[in-house]
């Protein structure tokens, strides 16, 4: 259906692909910061593998975004030559990596969300996106399994690991609402059966996440009056600028550098 996309749908789809691609790119970068710093070699490798999976998703999604935009921008252009206000990832993925418990808690909350979302996107009426979703969904199934295992390990581990994981969940909880926001961009795509209704996915996410939290002997954090929002419109925490400064340094300092 690609050639028949009309203007408003095409525009919404471009923004939506940037949102999905930016979530993957920024989370992948945060995970890559663990390379060489993991708690032990095997988990260091595991985190680097997750990071590579997300970079793969980002490349596919941003390449597609560039094609939909039709202005000749490649995935690299979109990743390395946009500034903070043009990024549409949620705040959840841009927060600094924190300690290992923080990284695991974020990984768990995000991958359960992404797993549900990409499962739904497999039946998107926009075929190229459905194709990417089918591949990513398999990897995300593994990501959920990995982070869930760690939720149990840390939650049911020592007093300190339990404390740190609970502390991370309490901080991250208010960043999860943003994942399920529905705005005009999404409504356009929902009406065209290109994207699923995030509000409808939320109850499933809540059930899955809360049951693991409870099984891991942790407490479900209390709802906070503050709720992170704005990432989908290009408004970010102060952390994203620092991340981009590092991530984009090389291509900005040496434009068109080749390996």
């Amino acid at each position, binding site marked *: 259906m690609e050639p028949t996309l009309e203007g408003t749908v095409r525009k919404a789809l471009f923004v939506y692909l940037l949102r999905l691609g930016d979530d993957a790119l920024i989370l992948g970068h945060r995970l890559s910061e663990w390379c060489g710093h993991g708690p*032990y070699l*095997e*988990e260091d*490798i595991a985190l680097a593998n997750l990071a590579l999976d997300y970079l793969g998703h980002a490349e596919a999604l941003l390449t597609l975004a560039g094609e939909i935009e039709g202005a000749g921008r490649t995935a690299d252009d979109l990743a390395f030559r946009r500034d903070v206000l043009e990024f549409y990832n949620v705040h959840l993925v841009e927060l600094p990596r924190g300690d290992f418990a923080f990284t695991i808690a974020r990984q768990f909350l995000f991958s359960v969300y992404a797993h549900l979302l990409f499962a739904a996107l497999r039946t998107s009426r926009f075929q190229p996106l459905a194709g990417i979703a089918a591949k990513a969904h398999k990897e995300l199934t593994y990501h959920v*399994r990995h982070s869930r*295992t760690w939720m149990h390990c840390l939650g049911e581990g020592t007093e300190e690991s339990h404390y740190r994981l609970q502390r991370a969940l309490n901080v991250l909880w208010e960043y999860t609402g943003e994942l399920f926001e529905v705005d005009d961009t999404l409504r356009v795509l929902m009406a065209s059966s290109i994207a699923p209704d995030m509000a409808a996915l939320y109850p499933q996410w809540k059930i899955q996440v809360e049951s693991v939290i409870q099984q891991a002997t942790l407490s479900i954090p209390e709802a906070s009056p503050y709720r992170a929002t704005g990432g989908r419109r290009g408004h970010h925490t102060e952390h994203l600028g620092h991340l981009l400064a590092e991530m984009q340094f090389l291509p900005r300092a040496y434009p068109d550098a080749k390996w």
Partner: protein
Amino acid sequence: MPEETNGLRLWEVFVQPRSGAPHEHAGSIRAANAEMALQHARDVYARRGPVVSLWVVPTDAIHATRPEDTGPFFDPADDKPYRHPLFYKVPHGIQNL
């Protein structure tokens, strides 16, 4: 007693390259429990090349011979050539063997 360092045990990893083939020893990894051991084994030994099944076994569950066992265990096989099939000549005229 299982040997532990920081809550991590040592596990031996066996990979099966295709259905019906034997599981072969690939190496070892450290992990906190069996599920984590499987996941680490997947990341370290199953990301390149075809694998259809993985086994992980706690290293301390393996009972092995020691270097000083080599003589009593394995040498007697040396001087009994009749244990090898090639020791026997097949008589002429035998068919369908």
